[in-house]
């Protein structure tokens, strides 16, 4: 590892520190309506995951990632790779930028190991875990909620599993992805999370949208 970059584990011990997820204030302020009985549209926050931005050349990053995480870098634009147990994913964001999402407590270890593999290559790894959050959207009306919210084509035939894009969501931007048949994921910036949450509840109202009970918003 090169000491030319300040690598820093800024994650606190969640057992002793009261951590608040980006949606914590929203749940408190706007409430958490229960989903309609049919569960046509359900949102939930997957808080405190590790979000790493990888910048650099595809070839070197791919090599390092395969070595360290066992999954390859998605080479095609707008694509997403998820590992076997669905806990770790890498998404193409731009020709020199990928988003890596892993369980929160793996974040720093992963960054350290990646850096060790990458040596002096021209790359950057940036921890943005606290700057964004992942919102899940499920249910048969999920795609209706998204059609009301984003200019991107979310028809399930066009937006196939394994796709992920950065696009417009209402008046902000999100990273939108489809890790499997039943689930959409929205990655939103922390400061816009409340707006996105309020928008989702509003757009989903006609479908009886509600919030998954297991959403964690206080310390885990």
């Amino acid at each position, binding site marked *: 590892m090169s000491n030319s970059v300040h690598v820093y584990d800024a994650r*606190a011990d969640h057992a002793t520190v009261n951590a608040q997820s980006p949606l914590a204030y929203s749940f408190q302020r706007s409430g958490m309506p229960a989903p309609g009985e049919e569960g046509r549209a359900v949102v939930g926050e997957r808080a405190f995951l590790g979000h790493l931005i990888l910048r650099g050349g595809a070839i070197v990053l791919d090599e390092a990632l395969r070595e360290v995480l066992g999954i390859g870098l998605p080479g095609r634009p707008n694509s997403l790779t998820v590992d076997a147990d669905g806990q770790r994913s890498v998404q193409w964001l731009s020709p020199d930028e990928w988003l890596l999402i892993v369980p929160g407590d793996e974040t720093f270890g992963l960054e350290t190991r990646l850096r060790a593999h990458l040596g002096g290559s021209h790359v950057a790894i*940036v921890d943005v875990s606290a700057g964004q959050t992942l919102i899940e959207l499920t249910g048969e009306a999920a795609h209706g909620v998204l059609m009301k919210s984003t200019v991107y084509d979310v028809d399930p035939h066009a937006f196939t599993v394994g796709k992920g894009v950065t696009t417009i969501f209402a008046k902000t931007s999100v990273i939108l992805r489809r890790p499997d048949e039943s689930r959409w994921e929205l990655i939103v910036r922390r400061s816009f999370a409340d707006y996105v949450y309020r928008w989702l509840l509003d757009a989903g109202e006609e479908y009886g949208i509600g919030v998954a009970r297991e959403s964690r918003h206080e310390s885990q």
Partner: protein
Amino acid sequence: MSQSALQPNRLAQGGQIDRTHALTFTFNGRSYTGHPGDTLASALLANGVDLVNRSFKYSRPRGIVAAGAEEPNAVVQLGATEATQVPNVRATQQALYDGLVACSTNGWPDAQRDIMRWVGKLGSPFMPPGFYYKTFMAPASMWMTYEKYIRKTAGLGRSPTQPDPDIYDHMHRHCDLLVVGAGPAGLSAALAAARAGARVILADEQEAMGGSLLDTRETLDDQPAAQWLKTTLAALVEHDNVTLLPRTTAHGYHDHHFVTLHERRTEHLGDSAPSQAGHRQSRSRLHRVRAGQVILATGAHERPLVYANNDVPGNLLAGAVSTYIRRYGVVPGQKLVLSTSNDHAYRAALDWQEAGREVAAIVDARTAPEGDLVAQAKAAGIRVITGSAVIEAKGAQRVSAARVAAIDVDAFTVTGKVETLECDTIASSGGYSPVIHLASHTGARPVWSDDIIGFVPTTVAGVTATGGAHGVYPLGEVLADGVEAGVNAATALGFAATVNDADLPRVAPRHEGPACALFQVPHEKATLRAPKQFVDLQNDVTAGAIEVATLEGFESIEHVKRYTAMGFGTDQGKLGNINGMAVAARCLGQSIPETGTTVFRPNYTPVTFGAVVGRHCRELFDPERYTPMQAWHVAQGAEFEDVGQWKRPWYYPQKRRTSEGEGLETMAEAVARECRAVREGVGILDASTLGKIDIQGADAREFLGRIYTNKWQKLAPGRVRYGLMCGDDGMVMDDGTTSCLAENHFLMTTTTGNAAPVLEWLELWHQTEWPELEVYFNSVTDHWATMTVTGPEARKLLTELTDIDLDREAFKFMDWREGHVAGVPARVFRISFTGELAFEINVQAHYAMHVWEALFAHGDKYNLTPYGTETMHVLRAEKGFIIVGQDTDGSVTPEDLGMYWAIGYDKPFPWVGKRALTRSDTRREGRKHLVGLKPKDASVVLEEGAPIVFDPKHAIPMPMAGHVTSSYYSPTLESGFALAVVKGGHQRLGESVYLPMADGRVHEAEIVGTQFVDPKGERQHV
């Protein structure tokens, strides 16, 4: 009471209405009934309501003319309550619902008794086109009074005066093929493309899909058209690649096949959107469609003939007569005269007669009509008068007779004796105009076709007009045309599709004779002397008005339209434009194509503002961005300031007791308290909104040197530096501190409002000019929460919570350290925007509230005081620190700010902004410089934005020397003070300037340096 007594014009059978249910509605205060399936117009006609409005200019009585989007007269005010008023609804497009309340938009006390009709009657001779331009000029001072009365007579409906109880929303759609119009052509096209596998959206503006099939006399496969329609719709529904959107008008065609559709989801159900299964639903929805290909199957609008008094109620379009009879079971009169230039309109007379009412005559402008429908009419015993036309309608509030005469179409003369035929209804048809609106939205110009006597659209690539929309009218041909369009579109999209003639329904062939080109009908008197012949009914534009316009030299059709207001109504000239062009062409002695073309702008029909806005209103108008401490700020009762999209605490008013009792502090009191706390104890600011950019790479340092005005080569890890950023025009665009985290790793901060623009700025230079530099930029604004602990007691407080050595020698001013604060890993920066000892703590945003609350838990004994942006501004101004955007305005250089220390004149690379500083204007004497101002009267707080002059006695215009950019009361100085830009200010220290105010006072102030408190900067180093 019997059905017929209730609804005198309602047929006992026929039409697509549900007679088993009655709907009650109110028009102009009277109650009527109609049926499901009715429009407001069909229900009014069923009830024998002739007069639905008063005209715009002349207050003439007006009735229903058409049955669809082209209706110019029946424009009503809808709504039972104040909040649910909708102005200018076309009764022909409003489905009837129980409890509907509507009234005419013009006429007082009502449309029937309207008193303005006398003004119209007596005044109309004095209201030629452009009369406003020719009068009301004297005396000049009276214009505003004249205008007040002119305005009162204008307008149609009225705006609601209460906010809308309903919501509207958007749906973003994507498809391979969008088909607009679900008549025979559109249905065929959609089905053909769907079968080939294309994703198809089929939108239709009417309450029911089917278009002309809903009222045609023809059969398909020997069945009534309704049968084929039902089968075809069912087939479409079966395709899961087809989306059917009824009640949905395509109103705007934008670039690259982006089409906006307005779906009226609940307008047929009531005044206000009912909830559905307990959930709120939108009143209407705007679909934003991106299509691969578009088929326009929008049909054609019938043109009325222009004859004298053609606006009296009882004058209708021939096609509308058929529609009312066949679709709604309503015959809008007792005795009909039909005036036509074509075969197709004959069906109106046949339908009328079959409905059991009398046809006085069909008056055909052609000398020898010979089509199948003509033969049918004759066989049915209807009198057909050839080579003639209705030249004038008689009657006041309803047609009482038609004056019919032989005419010479080409010579534009009446050639025969006038015969007066008693009747109460005159139907007219001058042929058909393809609905080319959407095609022309794209900028494609329509071209005139003599074959169909109308404009046909040209289209951009990927757009196809089919059926009536491009002048193909016979049903059999329309169906085939639609299939071909659908197959071609699918093929162009890459689907395998072929035309299979066997799929086409059989339509009995029908011979139609050629139509003649008749627009304005000649009258015995010259146009300017004949009774009014209306071209644009909604705007009261007559053939005479067009003639006057041409006399006055308005020869371009655009001039004619603007001078007469033709086509500027809510119907946008759907009925009148072609006739108007024909009149202008006649007056100018040229052909229609020589006269010009007609171009339509969006919208095809008007769209509710609310639908365009969607949910982007009220609480969702614009995102509100919050820091992780928002809940705390709210709980503390902070007042917030909008900074970009952020909500930032402005100040924290506290409860205080005064002689008047308990209350909240004023802003001035709160700010003074917060300022004192920072200068004397310790304060804390939520600075999380500052932009933060992580910069990594071997060339990061080089890059900083190029983008900032000052030097970065020697900044060591662990150190922080202030940086100033300019555009290449040399004007200051942003500032902030950048910390060296490691040799190749920096953390840049930007002003709150410029976080995104600065990141983009860095990327711009990197991607376009210096891609060879090894560096990456990433926003970490939201990842790190920032809190500034500042004041003489800051060290003491922080020591209680951190493992970082805060000793002044170990942790110097402009250093940063890593460690823990309240058990949370933190980077702490010893930088100061207040001039006091200050520590900026950065922690991951998840833990911000934890750290913030821990600081307060320990801060009590130091009277830790939260302060907002206002206090921050006062404190920084006392130190002369600028706010970019407040003390600068895009015309200020670093030199103007006196920040020579931040300009690396001798840096090797020609950094961004450097060259511009030596342009003749940036070098000149007398530029405005940033200085401090000390009011002579310490109690004065100068107004921000106040003008600065050297000579306050100078006459107006008084030369300005600058203005106040920032001004506050300083509790520390116990005086007002200000920052300002003043011409040559840096050379004028110690001189007096004057600030002449609006109230007549003139303040005097001394030009001083910009540092008011602790000018040597000792306090931040303690």
